[in-house]
């Protein structure tokens, strides 16, 4: 199943089928486009990805959650293309036997995605545009450590 889509993301649909009666806790993260960036109005975000490697990284994160927090399941979906303010850009769901693991694993999955997945976004303003400042490689990442831009 593709974890990347250029179609609107529906969190409920993305998370359908996550977990079962063994999972007493489900934590969902939904990321949306902010209409402001500092002092600037954001008209839209434009996402792009190196899709084959991004799919692989997201699959690795899902698998890591299941291995590191036993009994847990993780689902990740990410938007590509043009996203308007308020639109959903990323959905992460974690189902675990207990809440502590679900919260911790969901946060971990999001942070790892932000540091490792080869996905980029450009902010478009009324008077121009700019690539969003990239994240440095996560310490546990197979991605070679670089230095953040600027």
């Amino acid at each position, binding site marked *: 199943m593709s974890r990347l889509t250029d179609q609107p993301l529906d969190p409920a649909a993305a998370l359908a089928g996550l977990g079962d009666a063994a999972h007493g806790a489900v934590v969902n993260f939904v990321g949306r486009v902010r209409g402001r960036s500092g002092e600037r109005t954001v008209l839209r975000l434009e996402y792009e990805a190196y899709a084959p490697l991004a799919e692989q990284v997201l699959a690795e994160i899902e698998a890591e959650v299941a291995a590191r927090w036993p009994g847990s399941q993780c689902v990740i979906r990410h938007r590509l293309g043009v996203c308007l303010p308020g639109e959903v850009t990323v959905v992460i769901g974690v189902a675990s036997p207990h809440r502590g693991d679900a919260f911790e694993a969901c946060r971990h999955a*999001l942070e790892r*995605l*932000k*540091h490792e997945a*080869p996905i980029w976004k450009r902010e478009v303003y009324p008077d121009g545009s700019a690539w969003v400042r990239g994240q440095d490689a996560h310490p546990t990442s197979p991605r070679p450590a670089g230095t*953040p831009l600027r």
Partner: protein
Amino acid sequence: MSVRFLCFAQARDAVEGPQVELEVSGAQPLGALLDRLAGDYPGLQPLLPYCAFSLNGAWCQRDAVVADGAEVAILPPVSGG
């Protein structure tokens, strides 16, 4: 004999397109090819120290040996989510 470079985000802007073909004579370290590419596209020069790379779909370092027909991706610091 050529190597294809896939360029994303700021790297795509620097080469003014999603990919670049570089003619090569035999297998060479990625670092040497990147130096040539930065010569052809000066806008890449300041960006490359901050980039990660993949060779035929797998993460790699600058000392990776790149053969004819290979596909290299130039991956600036990521900003997904």
